[in-house]
């Protein structure tokens, strides 16, 4: 492997060494000298049309744009001279000539680059005496995206996104001068699966998401690092939530997983949290019928498993592919080590969603199949352990006495669906269900325990490429619902197994989960007009 060539330059009097080919804008980020920019985005090709990132370079004939200038050895760059500040102020003035300044009704307000840069670099009244140019507003680019031409500053980020990331080429700039507009080619609509990203990268409020439109002002949102469980890519996301409700899902930059982007299906993933939830435990054991407290239900599970322990060959455990690595670790230890069953396998919890494509989406609609398998939830071949199909066949024959199902979606593995599931489970003496969805198995099981959804618990996930990402609990689970880690650790204790820890942080050392960076505690209320309200680094 050849060594990467580096160059050394001086920015604001400080020496910086960066790989050759790095732009001056990126290099100045290294020393923390923020160069304002609108059209530059690290995930898109450089365009250099907004002229906001102009810096002074010694020896250059005129101040160049820093996004399109590569660093060179011995370069001397100045980002905060009076001349540069004057240029920024006049660029801002021109951008705001026809801007409607309708921040009160604009969803971007609070995380708008134009707003922030106005406060930082302009701060003066408009000198325009004529009427502003009016352009089409409320243009529906698709069911998901609404366009407001008056707010647009024509940075072409969205155009470059459809050209280079999705390569669908729907958007383009039509007309010139103050009549220029972003339009969908051929008068159609946006039809790619990643279109919500154009609203994210829009530096102003020209492109807004129908889903988030008027829902919440951004400064009310709390931000929690999470992952998207929609497919095995496991895109790193930020859940923006308020009042125990996720309002939107935004991509979080992770170069090796999802880069800057995520798909539209992932944007809607939070809508699954409240649907078909199993909220209270159900116990249908003889002598224990009727409503049960979580404690009684856990006792019932321990009793069932204690009984099944006598014949480990007739006990089978099916794990969820939506479970975290830590839960899978405890699951494997509980059933493989403490109860010594050879029959363990992982199933698909979900098969809804987009088919595979060549941008991000994978064919597997479960986030952590690889991780659950890696933690040891596999049939024990030495003892003739059965896989998922084998376990279901054994159930059908009546060879399994106790079946533990973790997570929904078992009926999807049977050609006959729910009716066949009822038939198969009727041959099993004891069925235990553990999951967050009110699944057919939950209705047929002898004991069903509710668990939190992924946004309601901490855990790490291993994606299709074997990269681990950690998801932090954003919401409170429904009252009385305890996490799988706690439930499995409790069962382990009741069945006199080894103790491996009861919290995510204890188990993370065993599964190698990357510990999430501790975010500073959010201010009580953050109506910040001067800083980026979301508190996350902006590309």
């Amino acid at each position, binding site marked *: 492997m050849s060594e990467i060539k580096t160059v050394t330059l001086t920015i604001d009097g400080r020496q910086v060494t960066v790989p050759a080919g790095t732009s001056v804008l990126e290099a100045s980020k290294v020393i923390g000298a923020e160069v304002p920019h609108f059209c530059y985005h690290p995930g898109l090709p450089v365009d250099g049309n907004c002229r906001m990132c102009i810096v002074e370079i010694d020896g250059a004939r005129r101040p160049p744009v820093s996004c399109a200038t590569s660093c060179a050895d011995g370069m001397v760059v100045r980002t905060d001279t009076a001349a540069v500040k004057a240029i920024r102020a006049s660029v801002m003035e021109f951008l705001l000539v026809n801007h409607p300044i*309708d*921040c*009160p*009704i604009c969803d971007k*307000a609070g995380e708008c680059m134009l707003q922030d840069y106005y406060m930082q670099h302009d701060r003066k009244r408009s000198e325009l005496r004529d009427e502003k140019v009016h352009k089409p*507003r*409320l243009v529906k680019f698709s069911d998901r995206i609404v366009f407001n031409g008056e707010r647009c500053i024509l940075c072409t980020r969205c155009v470059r996104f459809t050209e280079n990331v999705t390569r669908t080429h729907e958007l383009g700039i039509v007309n010139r001068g103050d009549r220029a507009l972003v339009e969908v080619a051929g008068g159609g609509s946006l039809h790619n699966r990643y279109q919500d990203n154009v609203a994210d990268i829009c530096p102003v409020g020209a492109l807004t998401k129908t889903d988030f*439109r*008027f*829902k919440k*002002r951004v*400064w*009310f949102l709390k931000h929690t690092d999470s992952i998207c469980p929609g497919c095995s890519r496991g895109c790193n996301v930020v859940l923006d939530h308020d009042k125990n409700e996720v309002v939107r899902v935004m991509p979080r930059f992770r170069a090796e997983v999802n880069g800057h982007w995520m798909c539209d299906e992932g944007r809607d993933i939070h809508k699954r949290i409240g649907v078909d939830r199993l909220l209270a435990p159900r116990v249908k054991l003889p002598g224990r019928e009727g409503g049960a407290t979580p404690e009684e239900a856990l006792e019932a599970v321990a009793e069932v498993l204690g009984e099944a322990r006598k014949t480990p060959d007739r006990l089978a455990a099916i794990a969820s592919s939506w479970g975290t690595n830590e839960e899978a670790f405890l699951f494997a230890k509980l059933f493989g080590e403490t109860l010594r069953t050879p029959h363990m396998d992982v199933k698909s919890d979900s098969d809804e969603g987009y088919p595979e494509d060549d941008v991000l989406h994978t064919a597997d609609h479960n986030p952590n199949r690889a991780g659950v398998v890696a933690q040891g939830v596999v049939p024990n071949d030495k003892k003739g352990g059965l896989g998922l199909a084998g376990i279901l066949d054994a159930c059908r024959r009546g060879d399994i006495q106790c079946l533990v199902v973790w997570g929904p979606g078992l009926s999807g593995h049977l050609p006959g669906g729910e009716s066949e599931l009822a038939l198969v489970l009727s041959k099993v003496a004891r069925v235990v269900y553990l999951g967050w969805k009110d699944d057919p198995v939950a209705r047929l099981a002898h004991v069903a325990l509710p668990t939190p959804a992924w946004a309601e618990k901490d855990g790490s996930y291993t994606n299709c490429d074997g990269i681990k990402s950690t998801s932090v609990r954003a919401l409170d689970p429904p009252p009385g619902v305890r996490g799988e880690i706690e439930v499995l650790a409790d069962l382990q204790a009741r069945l006199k197994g080894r103790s491996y820890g009861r919290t995510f942080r204890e188990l993370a050392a065993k599964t190698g989960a990357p510990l999430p960076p501790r975010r500073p505690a959010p201010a009580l*209320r953050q*109506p910040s007009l001067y800083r980026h309200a979301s508190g996350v680094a902006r590309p």
Partner: protein
Amino acid sequence: MNPLLNPKLPEPAYKEEFTAGRLFTYRNPSDLTLWERLYVPEVLRGLSITGSIFFKNMGLWLVWLGYWARGRANEAPRGAVTVYYPEEERPDMTKVNRGKHILTQRLNGEPQCVACYMCATACPAWCIHIDAGEHPDPAIEKYPVRFDIEIDKCIFCGYCEEACPVDAIRLTTDYHTVDYLRERMVYDRDYLLSWNPTKVQQEHVYPGGEPRRG
């Protein structure tokens, strides 16, 4: 310096302090006279002051009863300075008193409000709750579907009024916010929009009907 921590400093005989524009004098027990330290005579003196005011008021009240019996209660001499709220109200209430909120209206009676949440953001009591909706008129675009003010939480600071970019919320001088039910103390959008100056002069309008009396 705290005199208790530094015994070298002489202990002041009394302390004078301006509070709310008035001079208050605090005396130490040590400089009370012997007569004052006897306690009982001073207590009796205090009782005689309050007692004399009481009997004076009672006498005046009997006089008032006589006037009232003849239907001339307004002309009677008044004893205590108490205002008999809610039958009576102070006539000298300031014109800039901050009271109940109203939402201003467009010419067609729709709210002027554009649901920007500035008031809800500025509110230190977090008593303003807004849900925004898409207005059928694209020129207006955003408007409040729900606009609730929990008047029992409101501290009448007036920040909402100040934060509003479109002069949609104002505080009136009307301070009649009392009620017997918390549910009725949440003013909804329609109530806030129903403000009508002539109506307010005639009667107090309560959301959800007139409050139950005593």
